[in-house]
């Protein structure tokens, strides 16, 4: 067999490494013992770190989207469709995307830097020699936390964005909250909600795994920690869009079928 070029070999080895890491995190979802205390702590940290930022951006997104769509709907005389248009956009795309991007920036870098600095200062080695499995203590607790929390954060983002939209609609034509809710919810299907949750789970898992992988294998001192955090953000943002596309294909298929 011909020798593979060195760079090619490196990429393949890295890919095998990543696959092993992903497999291991998946197996730890079902393999006891669970680090229950660590998992709860991480869930809390995930929510706490991102709640404000997600709320703030979702509210603005709701306001902006509503105001921007109103003129074109009005020109068709279809202004009353505004709540259902906004709610579909929020639930299907905006809510999950905003949440995931914020979390990629906020949590991805945080997880990666945290584990990276533990790696380069030998804290992970110290755990390993003191009889702890650092993988389940550090990695799987974080991956489980992001995977579980993202759907919750997405629902929260959806609600805030819709609230932002209601405030906008109300300030224009004074329509009541109950009417807005009726129209907004009326246009959302179970498939919308289901696919949004699935997407959120995949986003959360991707952010957790990428943050942990880059941090856990950080090398090269403090410089390496910075690099790890940076690549965590870039890689998870890219993968969010890829997941978005793949799920979109599935959902479109289901809608037609």
């Amino acid at each position, binding site marked *: 067999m011909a020798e593979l070029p060195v760079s090619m070999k490196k990429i393949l080895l890295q890919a095998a490494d990543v696959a092993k890491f992903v497999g291991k995190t998946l197996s730890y979802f079902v393999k006891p013992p669970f680090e229950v205390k660590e998992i709860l702590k991480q869930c809390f940290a995930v929510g706490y770190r991102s709640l404000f930022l997600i709320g703030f951006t979702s509210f603005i997104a709701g306001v902006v989207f509503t105001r921007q769509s109103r003129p074109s709907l009005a020109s068709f005389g279809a202004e009353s469709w505004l709540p259902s248009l906004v709610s579909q956009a929020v639930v299907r795309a905006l809510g999950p995307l905003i949440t995931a991007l914020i979390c990629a920036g906020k949590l991805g870098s945080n997880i990666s830097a945290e584990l990276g600095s533990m790696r380069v*200062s030998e804290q992970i080695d*110290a755990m390993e020699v*003191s*009889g702890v499995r650092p993988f389940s203590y550090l990695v799987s607790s974080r991956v489980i936390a992001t995977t579980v929390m993202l759907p919750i954060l997405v629902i929260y983002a959806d609600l805030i964005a819709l609230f932002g939209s209601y405030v906008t609609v109300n300030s224009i034509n004074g329509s009541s909250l109950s009417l807005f809710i009726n129209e907004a919810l009326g246009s959302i299907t179970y498939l919308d909600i289901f696919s949004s949750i699935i997407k959120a789970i995949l986003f959360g898992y991707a952010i957790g795994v990428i943050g942990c992988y880059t941090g856990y294998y950080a090398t090269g001192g403090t410089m390496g920690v910075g690099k790890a955090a940076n690549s965590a953000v870039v890689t998870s943002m890219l993968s969010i869009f890829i997941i978005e596309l793949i799920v979109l294909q599935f959902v479109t298929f289901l809608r037609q079928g």
Partner: protein
Amino acid sequence: MKTETIPTLPSVGESETVVKIRNLNKSFGERAVLKDLSIDLRQGENLVVIGKSGAGKSVLIKCLVRLIEPDSGEINVLGFDVPRLDVKQLRELRLQVGFSFQGSALYDSMTVRENLEFPLRRNLGITNQEELNQAVEESLADVGLSHTIEQYPTELSGGMKKRIGIARTLILKPKIMLYDEPTAGLDPITSGEINDLIVKFRDKYNTSSIIITHDISSARATGDRIVALLEGTIKMEGTFDEMKLTKDPELAQFFNY
């Protein structure tokens, strides 16, 4: 609590060799770091390994507790055939071998108390708070830092962190201690304190230690026997005074301080 007996090799009791390394090899990529290295550690002695930075000193002691997997060679620690241990045996081994990391590797997110409790809870499964308190207080008193118990590592000086790192390791009463550059980056007075601790613990707990250093005054203060790690293998061995008379130009550099 565990009451299992620890398997010992017949050879250990007789010759009182607690660590036996034969023909150890380790490369990273193209770079051979350890080449056919052989070394013994005897019961109750302080063995100092000197060598310049990058010589492979840390790699050597990390191989002893499987933080690094060697490529080939025999490693026997307290009767454990290190390269061929299963998960359970590895745990038992690590329980008896304390590792003091170069950067002290204290867990940043935990107080000094929690740092010291960690190996007790995790390794020995102790949950009784009174028992934990007693062990933590004794261990801190040993290193003269009882007053730091509620502080976080970032609030401590380098020397204090080192001592607490050592206390965290000694809290499990290991039979063997591995010190990775215990005095690196410390002023002479603080270095002297650490040297005194190392000698004190050998006398108090009858531990056998490997002390990695490039600090020649620390080698003199702590070492019963000194070996030099040059070009990936053990080049010379003797007491401090014997080593000092060396004709080897590279080794002589260490002593011309």
